[in-house]
């Protein structure tokens, strides 16, 4: 059982990282459905930086930087140019898949420069992900920055007249979102399944996105959901091995179906107000 939990946690770590980033982005009012693309970019960048530098740690940093740069495209389009965020995010996903397939070719089949140490049976990035959860809660609820994030996500006009730089806060949050998605991708290519393969995120970005809605943008719930979805991810392979008659494909419908269910159950106005869907989510702001 303990082993299974460790496996589920390891499989759920990409979801934790990417969803935490998206929570920041959405809380500030920017919807970014390009997680899958940013994760792929982070995975390839992480892999290649680690390959050239010889250090998986520098690889992780590379993944974060590349993911943030990818996020920056979305930020520029949706914040500065006030583009429709769904379109820009979709473009990011398509582009991310294309560019990593193109640039990743020389890295196919190479061994990854992976982590050699493990702590309590998990690789270091898993610990980082776990540490980032209380940190995110702290930042979002207890700091000035966190209050500003909520302000620009709920009522940018008011935040603006109170002297908060709406664009700056949103840019920072989108960069955090991109960086965390990049880290999530780099974790995949450097620690979880150490190698580079085309489209290796295999839909994890979409699961991470659904987790943000599933968890109602609360980091703690995102952690629980990530472990749950991670357990499903593991089970799809385990059940096959044990000869159970459940198709892995049917099992992997559960994250998406449960997200739709949760959204439908929590849809009444009263609950929506309480769980705090950012009022300005998806809406550009012009001074």
């Amino acid at each position: 059982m303990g082993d299974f939990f460790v496996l589920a946690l390891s499989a759920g770590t990409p979801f934790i990282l990417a969803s935490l980033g998206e929570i920041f982005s959405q809380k500030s009012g920017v919807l970014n459905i390009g997680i899958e693309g940013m994760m792929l970019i982070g995975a390839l960048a992480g892999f290649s930086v680690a390959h050239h530098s010889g250090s998986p740690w520098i690889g992780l940093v590379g993944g974060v930087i590349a993911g943030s740069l990818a996020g920056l495209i979305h930020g520029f389009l949706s914040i500065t140019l006030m583009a429709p965020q769904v379109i820009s995010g979709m473009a990011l996903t398509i582009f991310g898949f294309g560019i990593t397939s193109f640039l990743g070719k020389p890295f196919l089949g190479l061994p990854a420069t992976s982590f050699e140490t493990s702590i309590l049976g998990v690789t270091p990035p898993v610990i980082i992900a776990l540490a980032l959860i209380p940190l995110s809660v702290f930042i979002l609820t207890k700091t000035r920055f966190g209050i500003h994030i909520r302000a620009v996500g709920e009522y940018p006009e008011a935040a603006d007249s109170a002297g908060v730089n709406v664009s700056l806060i949103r840019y920072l949050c989108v960069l955090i979102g991109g960086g965390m998605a990049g880290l999530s991708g780099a974790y995949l290519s450097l620690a979880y399944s150490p190698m580079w393969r085309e489209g290796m995120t295999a839909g994890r970005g979409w699961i991470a996105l659904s987790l943000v809605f599933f968890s109602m943008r609360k980091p703690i719930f995102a952690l629980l959901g990530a472990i749950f979805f991670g357990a499903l991810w593991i089970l799809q392979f385990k059940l096959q091995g044990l000869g159970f008659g459940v198709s892995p494909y049917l099992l992997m419908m559960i994250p998406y179906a449960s997200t739709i269910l949760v959204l439908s159950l929590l849809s009444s106005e009263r609950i929506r107000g309480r769980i705090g869907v950012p009022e300005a989510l998806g809406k550009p702001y012009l001074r």
Partner: protein
Amino acid sequence: MKRFVFERRLSTTQEGYLRVTVLSILFSIFLFGVFLLLGGSNPILAYLKILRSAFGSLRGISHTTLRMIPLVFTALAFALPYRAGVWNIGAEGQMYMGAFLATGVALSIQGMPDSLIVPAIIFSGFLAGAIWGAISGILRGLLKVDEIVTTLMMNYIAILWVSYLVTGPWREKGGWGYSHSSLIPKERWIPFITGTEIPVTIVLGVLFAFIIALLLKRSRLGYEIRVVGANPKTAELAGMSSLKTILLVMLVAGGLAGIAGAGEIAGVQHRLRMGFSPGYGFTGIVIAFLSRGNPLVIIPVSFLFAGMIVGGNTLQIVMKLPSGIVEIFQGMTLFCLAGGQFFLEYRMKRRKRWEIFSSSP
């Protein structure tokens, strides 16, 4: 004390739309050229190759038209709800559901006259896609659940469902370990247009584009769709039911995407495969957005994008480029179009000196 400010345009004109769109596309062609150049290929040569392989021969045009069919349908599936202010990014999944039911009908129905079986296959594609789209429509209309999320999530449920079928109950027996269904009997294929290898679904696609254009422009229903899209509050005050409108557009949109799936399986690939679509549903979004939801513009734009897919694939083989260039180009185009939207709605204005002094906060 800004010298330049952005000012909202009072109205967007047809010429403005055309100018911004053309400039956005030119910019993305330029960007992609720079990308090819950095990758060590000659961009002009590459573009010529794309054009020649996609449009330069009868064979090329035939390939391009074949690829265009699903794109017209999925683009319409985005465009119609878009006009009603509803974001249907679920065409990919609706297409998979259409392909699923169409295959089921094509492989299992017995005792139906041959002349009826092909219409039945196409209709079952429509039906399955429509139901899949309507689920998101109902959730949005009744419970105000964001359709962006539900349509997106339901894509993956549908794709997984088809993967389950072709690896499980529908997997061809003794099929060399490939994940696909058995071949649809030849007499149940969607017939080709005489003298070509293009299934008649292309005619259906063009027809639907005209019908939807007419519906939007001339009918009471189309008027309601446009009002709900432009201003839901006004629509409600005028006694229009946004629930009915949203449900209707999602139903039709899902159905159209479903026909794309039925047409692709019963007309082109002739068996259900895992991941049979290279993202037609998502390319449809690019096309529809470029066309600003105008069904008639969708027809030529789908043809061009189909050409880009055909040409891009050839380019990859001929110039020995790694895969992914079609997606890179599509992504860049969508970035440029999304960014270009800004210049459609705002204009840069140079302020006179006195304006700066009198209005600065």
